[in-house]
């Protein structure tokens, strides 16, 4: 047979979710959606396809255009598969929901698409769940979003996670203070995104800055410590940086205070060199890490200028959870929700289909998950199938008696002749 090779295959970077994985993804998304819901966030669904101009809004956000999947509609306009959810939601918020009372609290569960160089474990179809809080600025709004991020991770069942907290103005202020030229700054930021501290320090050395300024940059890049330590090290910086550094620190301090009051301070730490690859962030930024997973399971931050690109002019903040990575982390901790099981398979001889289906309906009415065996199997063959599905057989014919709790009771009620327990 000459079947074309690609017919049975799927493109690189995407994958099928078989029932077990699909159920795990669904359960996780439901759990997160529930948390978002109780905080007042309402779900929106936006199209997978957008105009190229839409997804590239936000001053070169996702700067790398070659990461986009692009295609043409029938009028020759360029479309793109959305590379993130924040931009489409900003579009919706600034246009179709412009008249709604503020702030807008919106949530989503959807895949986004970014081309990734193919290596083990890298996917191009990325399932995300997240929220956007639009129309509220300030530490309270930032605090809500970070607290919700902690709440969402906790609700997923994940243990031992940590959120790193940074601020775009802090990094920008330090760069301004150090007085490096534009090209050097770009190169250094690239190193900072990858947290390539060797390249960063080399870049700083080669920039030929005075020792004190060079020291300031490297201290920012590798800073790990408490708020007090941050203030001690950077609190005096910024007379020439127009106080950006100090203001950013103060904002982070207010937030940490708030998060301490909410009892999540232990899950949050300062990460002052944190620089996210998306270009639209303007304030507090954060990433969430799980033990054993090399990439962040959560990322977000404030983006006060993005809505202006859609005519909105509203401050906004939000985050996205990377569900595939989160599932990996949960699996490592043995905390994946089990797939919902099948309780029973009803035997269904060809001449008693109606009876079998009625029995199944009755059992479902009591909250059991029940299948009717459409292949007409009996005896050992049916038992084998049921065992493979982790279920019990409900037999309509007289046979060996069973003693299986609910299913046995079903027999009595339904006058089903016999119940064969499998376990």
């Amino acid at each position, binding site marked *: 047979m000459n079947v074309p090779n690609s017919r049975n295959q799927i493109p690189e970077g995407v994958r099928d979710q078989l029932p077990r994985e699909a159920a795990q993804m669904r359960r996780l998304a439901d759990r997160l959606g529930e948390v978002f819901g109780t905080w007042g966030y309402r779900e929106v669904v936006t199209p997978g396809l957008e105009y190229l101009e839409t997804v590239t809004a936000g001053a070169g956000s996702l700067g790398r255009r070659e990461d986009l999947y692009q295609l043409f509609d029938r009028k020759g306009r360029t479309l793109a598969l959305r590379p993130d959810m924040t931009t489409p939601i900003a579009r919706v918020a600034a246009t179709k929901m412009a008249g709604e009372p503020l702030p807008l609290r919106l949530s989503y569960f959807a895949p986004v698409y970014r081309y990734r160089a193919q290596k083990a474990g890298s996917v191009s179809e990325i399932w995300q769940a997240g929220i956007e809080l639009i129309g509220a600025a300030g530490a309270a709004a930032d605090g809500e979003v970070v607290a919700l991020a902690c709440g969402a991770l906790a609700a997923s069942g994940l243990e031992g996670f940590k959120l790193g907290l940074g601020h775009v103005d802090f990094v920008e202020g330090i760069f301004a203070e150090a007085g490096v030229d534009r090209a050097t700054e770009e190169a250094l930021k690239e190193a900072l995104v990858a947290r390539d501290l060797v390249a960063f320090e080399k870049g700083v050395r080669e920039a030929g800055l005075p020792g004190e300024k060079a020291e300031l940059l490297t201290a920012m890049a*590798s800073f790990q410590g408490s708020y007090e330590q941050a203030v001690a090290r950077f609190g005096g910086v910024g007379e020439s940086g127009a106080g950006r550094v100090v203001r950013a620190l103060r904002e982070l301090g207010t937030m940490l205070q708030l998060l301490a009051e909410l009892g999540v301070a232990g899950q949050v730490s300062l990460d002052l060199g944190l620089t996210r690859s998306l270009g639209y962030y303007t304030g507090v930024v954060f990433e969430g890490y799980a033990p054993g*997973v*090399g990439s962040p399971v959560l990322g977000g931050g404030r983006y006060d200028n993005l809505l202006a690109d859609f005519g909105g002019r509203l401050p906004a903040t939000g985050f996205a959870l990377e569900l595939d990575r989160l599932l990996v982390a949960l699996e490592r901790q043995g905390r994946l929700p089990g797939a919902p099981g099948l309780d029973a398979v009803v035997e269904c001889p060809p001449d008693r289909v109606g009876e079998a289906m009625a029995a199944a309906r009755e059992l479902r009415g009591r909250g059991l998950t029940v299948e009717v065996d459409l292949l007409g199997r009996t005896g050992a063959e049916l038992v084998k199938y049921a065992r493979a599905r982790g279920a019990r057989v409900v037999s309509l014919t007289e046979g060996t008696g069973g003693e299986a709790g609910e299913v046995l009771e079903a027999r009595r009620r339904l006058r089903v002749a016999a119940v064969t327990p499998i376990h």
Partner: protein
Amino acid sequence: MELLTIAVPKGRPYGETVQLLRSAGIAGPELTAEESRALMITCPALSTRFIIARDSDVPTYVEHGAADLGIVGKNVLMESEPKVYELLDLGYSACRFILAAPAAADPVRLLDGSAARRVATKYPRMTEAYFSSRGLQVETIFLHGSIEVAPKVGLADMIVDITETGRTLKENNLAIIDNLWTSSMRLIANRASYRLKAERIGPLVQRLRELMAG
């Protein structure tokens, strides 16, 4: 104290790596100066564990969190671009990426771009990056080792390889056409461990820094 797992490479840099880890107080006598057959060694008193791995596997262990930290050459990192943090240039095992050809060959003709030349290498990605940055098209031939023999047996016109002293090149009658990049050993960290075990990794980086400074 929380256990810290560090992947270290077998082979040439092993001895110097052990020496460094010991003087930094990260490794105890369990990590012997001579490579043993053990692939995993624990130092209970210091709460550290070492995975002894092939150098090209070190970034994989770290990227996927099997190790919190790793020590590996920049040459390996450049070729595989793992999602890890590069924390420190440890300086030793310094070497250069070079482009070399038989001493008798005319380098100008080899790089005139008129015909696709064959280049043997252990570093196909870096090789392609180098030639495409020069606007030259070459055919890259991937080999696992003994790269310097490839021109002699007619497998390739040139090689891209790393060299410390250039001796092997001379022995094989090869001349350096171009120096591409330099490499040395690096300390890398798993991106989650960098945050989750900050209180262990931070002081360790500091100690290594001090050791190297003086």
